[in-house]
């Protein structure tokens, strides 16, 4: 039953993405005219309105219901059709809250963070455009529209990573991000093509999720596996998983609010969202799911080790994001889509809080990102300190915080789900310890001990203005309480599973192990988390050791291996980039001009040579012509006689 009220909400859907788009367009044309401040306010207001609309729509959403707003038919060719149509169901609702809610906070924060930047209007134009595409991604009711959003956020990510383009390194990082993502998208596009053609054989020529869900089981298991593998290739690009994670650490070249919004809370989770959105497809591809679980676990572990050794405040967080995304894929891989989305949700809060906190630190230190030049900031930046501590506890998984519940759920699923195994659980468990270690290593280096900043920097350290610290506090609040929405049953009957059940259905309830096992595992996780924090404290937290450790952060060979991220970038450079540019250079500078064009000019030259000879025949001597004429006539005669 659709009440009039709900119809009203359905027609509203299009405005959720369109309002940020309109603000972006307005700021392109009039931003300069109405000034930097007003442009920023407009951008924030637009996302704020989107947020309010989202909450309104989500509040009206019936438990089993879906709102759909079909705007027009985008592409139609032969039987193939793609609608421009938006939908909100329980899954999209979660994403809406994350994208517009956290997006709104980050927009506000940016007002303060970017206030002195000459390019602030351009910044907000890109940021609003990003929100538009991200909303398209999560609201699109078909795979092609999701892909539009998918590519669009990639564009904005590219533009924002290279926002400070006058430094070539930033622009190079932007290019790298886009191109590495495109490599994944190559797989994504092929996946869409196989899906279109295979469904087309059944007479189905649309890609909307409802149709997909009801017909996907008609495809052969091999085709489903192929499609899911190709689509997942796209996810490894967008969500920075092995082997395509290399772009995300470099993406930290962008302004910090961008890192928080795009490269932590929203865009990089698009791969997780996509697999969850297509859960019915992935669920039919056991091989792909195992691969996803292993890639997720391996990425989580591997990135956490790298995070242990980084010296740049944002790079620690970047690898941490890669690692946490690995957790989400671990959940996806064991079929626990709801747990994956839950971690996506909680991670958005504490990781955004951490990034914005690091932004506050960077802001206070006049742009310094090297942790070796920080320290003792606790006294200078109390608000940043406390919010950072809360978020760090949350990501480490301290009891009662958001990360505690969501990570614990994933570990539990990795252990107990029929697709899970003790090995997967173990990798996740070790990674949980490392998470606590790298987070508190960073925390102590940055906020405790002596301040190692240079004197002129030190003189200007100041706490950030309210426009930046209030979003931090809200996010810190979320870093604790967002997790209670999905707390396990032995705490209280949390709404999370019920909320998402219409989307994912009941996932292997029967296989749940006993509550005692669940609690025992939880205690083990708590133990290793505590060990991680204590080791961090022992190594970096005590004033005596901190100074010396911080000074000699670059230690022996294993340390350098981690610091240099296992030399994966260098490996790719040798294996892919250089051979490719070599071939390209050879084709462009030798093969094309010398061989192909050479052949052309060779033909031309031989024609010229031949014509020189023929010119000699045109001697002007009538007798010669006569001989040729007679010979020709005889030849023709012979030909015709031969035909008879």
């Amino acid at each position, binding site marked *: 039953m659709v009440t009039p009220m709900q119809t009203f909400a359905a027609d509203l859907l299009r405005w959720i993405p369109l309002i940020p788009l309109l603000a972006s367009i307005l700021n392109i044309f009039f931003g300069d005219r109405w000034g930097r401040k007003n442009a920023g306010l407009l951008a924030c207001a637009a996302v704020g309105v989107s947020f309010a609309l989202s909450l309104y729509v989500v509040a009206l959403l019936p438990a089993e219901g879906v709102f759909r707003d079909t705007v027009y038919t985008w592409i139609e*060719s032969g039987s193939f059709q793609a609608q421009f149509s938006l939908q909100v169901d329980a899954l999209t609702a979660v994403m809406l809250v994350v994208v517009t809610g956290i997006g709104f906070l980050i927009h506000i924060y940016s007002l303060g963070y970017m206030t002195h930047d000459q390019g602030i209007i351009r910044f907000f134009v890109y940021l609003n455009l990003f929100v538009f595409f991200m909303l398209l991604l999560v609201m699109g009711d078909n795979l092609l529209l999701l892909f539009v959003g998918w590519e669009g956020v990639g564009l904005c990510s590219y533009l924002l990573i290279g926002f400070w383009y006058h430094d070539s390194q930033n622009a190079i990082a932007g290019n790298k991000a*886009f191109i590495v993502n495109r490599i994944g998208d190559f797989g994504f*596009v092929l996946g869409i093509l196989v899906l279109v053609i295979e469904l087309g054989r059944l007479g189905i020529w649309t890609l909307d999720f409802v149709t997909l869900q009801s017909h996907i089981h008609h495809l052969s298991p091999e085709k489903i596996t192929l499609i899911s593998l190709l689509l997942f290739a796209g996810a490894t690009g967008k969500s920075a998983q092995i082997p395509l994670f290399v772009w995300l650490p470099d993406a930290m070249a962008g302004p910090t609010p961008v890192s928080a919004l795009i490269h932590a809370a929203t865009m990089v989770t698009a791969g997780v969202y996509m697999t969850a959105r297509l859960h019915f497809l992935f669920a039919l591809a056991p091989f792909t799911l195992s691969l996803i679980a292993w890639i997720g676990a391996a990425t989580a572990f591997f990135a956490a080790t790298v995070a242990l050794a980084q010296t740049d405040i944002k790079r620690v967080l970047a690898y941490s994001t890669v690692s946490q995304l690995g957790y989400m894929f671990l959940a996806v891989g064991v079929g626990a889509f709801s747990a994956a989305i839950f971690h996506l949700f909680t991670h958005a809060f504490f990781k955004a809080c951490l990034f914005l906190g690091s932004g506050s630190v960077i802001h206070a230190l006049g742009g310094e990102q090297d942790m070796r030049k920080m320290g003792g900031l606790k006294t200078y930046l109390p608000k940043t300190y406390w919010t950072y501590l809360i978020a760090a506890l949350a990501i480490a998984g301290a009891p009662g915080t958001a990360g505690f519940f969501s990570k614990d759920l994933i570990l539990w699923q990795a252990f107990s789900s029929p697709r899970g195994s003790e090995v997967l659980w173990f990798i996740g468990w070790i990674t949980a310890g490392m998470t606590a270690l790298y987070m508190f290593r960073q925390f102590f280096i940055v906020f405790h001990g002596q301040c190692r900043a240079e004197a002129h920097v030190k003189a200007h350290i100041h706490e950030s203005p309210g426009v930046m610290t209030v979003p931090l506090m809200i996010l810190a609040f979320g870093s604790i309480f967002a997790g209670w929405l999905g707390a396990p049953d032995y705490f209280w009957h949390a709404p999370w599973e019920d909320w998402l059940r219409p989307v994912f259905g009941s996932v292997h309830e029967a296989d749940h192990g006993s509550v005692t096992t669940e609690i025992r595992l939880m205690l083990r996780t708590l133990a290793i988390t505590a060990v991680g924090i204590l080791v961090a404290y022992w190594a970096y937290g005590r004033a005596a050791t901190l100074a010396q450790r911080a000074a000699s952060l670059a230690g022996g060979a294993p340390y350098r291996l981690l610091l240099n991220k296992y030399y994966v970038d260098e490996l790719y450079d040798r294996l892919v980039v250089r051979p490719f540019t070599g071939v390209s250079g050879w084709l462009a500078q030798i093969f094309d001009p010398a061989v192909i064009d050479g052949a052309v000019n060779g033909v031309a030259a031989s024609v010229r040579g031949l014509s020189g000879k023929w010119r000699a025949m045109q001697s002007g001597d009538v007798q010669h012509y006569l001989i040729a004429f007679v010979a020709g006539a005889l030849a023709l005669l012979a030909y015709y006689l031969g035909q008879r």
Partner: protein
Amino acid sequence: MSAIAIGDLSLLLVLPVLGGAALLFIPRRRTAMLFGGAMVFSAVAFLWSIKLLIQFDGRLAEMQFVERAAWVPAYGIEYIVGVDGISLFLVLLTTFLTPLSILASWSVKEKVKEYLFFMLLLETGMLGAFVALDLFLFYVFWEVMLVPMYFLIGVWGGPRRIYAALKFVVFTMTGSLLMLVAIIYLAVRQAETSQVLSFDLLRIYDLHLPFHEQIWLFLAFALSFAIKVPVFPLHTWLPDAHVEAPTAGSVILAAILLKLGTYGFLRFALPLFPDAARVAAPFFIGLAVIGVIYGAVVAMMQADIKRLVAYSSVSHLGFVMLGLFVFNVQGLQGGIYQMLSHGLSTGALFLLVGMIYDRRHTRLIQDFGGLWRQIPIFSALLLVVTFSSIGLPGLNGFVGEFLILVGAFKVVPGWTALAASGVVLGAVYMLWMFRRVAFGPLTHPENEKLRDLDPREILILAPIVVLIVVMGVYPRPFLDRMKPAVDLTLTRMGATQVTASAVGSGANRELNADER
């Protein structure tokens, strides 16, 4: 229609050349007046083509605005022109880009009168080739185009203009002579079967020749068109012609002239010789995909932006060829759409390159860098066009590319997968170029004095950029009008397949039936 009254389409054809003739009466030192005159005539031609667009009935597959008059009755040569959903948008592309190209030629200072005359003559030539429905008439227009283009490159071109112009003409003529032979052969065969000597295309469509004749005729046509497209490995005239041509010449060349090659396949080579086309299809699909990848890989290492864009055209036109040779509705519609998209994005790229060349007299990527800070409007527009060329969803390039991939994947999944790697390669060379031009520090002091685009230049680019967005967001008005004509073309390709079903694949027939 009376014999004296001039039809709508003929009026469109004569308007530019009439303008060209009118210019001859303006004194040559009155350059502003010359430009104004050329603008007026080409703009009126554009408005007139809009009128045709409005009157065009998108539900019909048949030719519309058909006019017919005897021309050389002794040889059965007629003046027959008409427009269907395929040629309609190519006509519009021509009338749309010609005034913009003229407006972009402000920096031409020498022999302005002749320059503008040739531009207008060229427009008539191109329009004629798109609307001609008599094979001989088509051939005449096809050759007529060469003359003004030859002079535009050879007189107003860069340092190696003579070499480039000659290469362009010799290449094209080589192909077209064989085509002329094939056209005459077709007319003679037509006379043999129906006792009427005629070059009427619609009549000759129904002349179902046996395969052994088709294949030679197909090859003669195909060579001519493949050079024009250009299909790998016949492409080497293109970079030279582009580099030497003046801006407007490059725009017209890339945006419209190349499309005459793919249009030729679609209008003539494929429906006239369907059995031969099917047999040759694997060969052309292979070349198309090689072109997609080869063009992109070679584009990457170019130092001159114009050369880079020229090779990118080889890549994009490879996509079009792939779409045309899979013989289904998505492939064809995608192919036509990609022709239009490429016309807009590459046209805009050449315009932008021309604008920066007017200021700096260089097109080498290494002479730029950090331009965004100095000339943001230029850079932002270059950004939009770059992503249009990359095929970002939401802009025009994606729609055609995606439909081509869908159409091709049905038929040749392996080759299509290879072609799809173009999505990566396109991003690689375009973004690398863009970064080195617009991003980074402003390293060359000469660039510190660059002016941003003036209102005239914005006026040139704005309509193109608007269309780039519109065609990406709302492709239906275009696709819907193409559909009936595309279906008819597919029928023509399939119909003879049934009568002479020695060759051809069942899958295509099934799809054709499905689409109808």
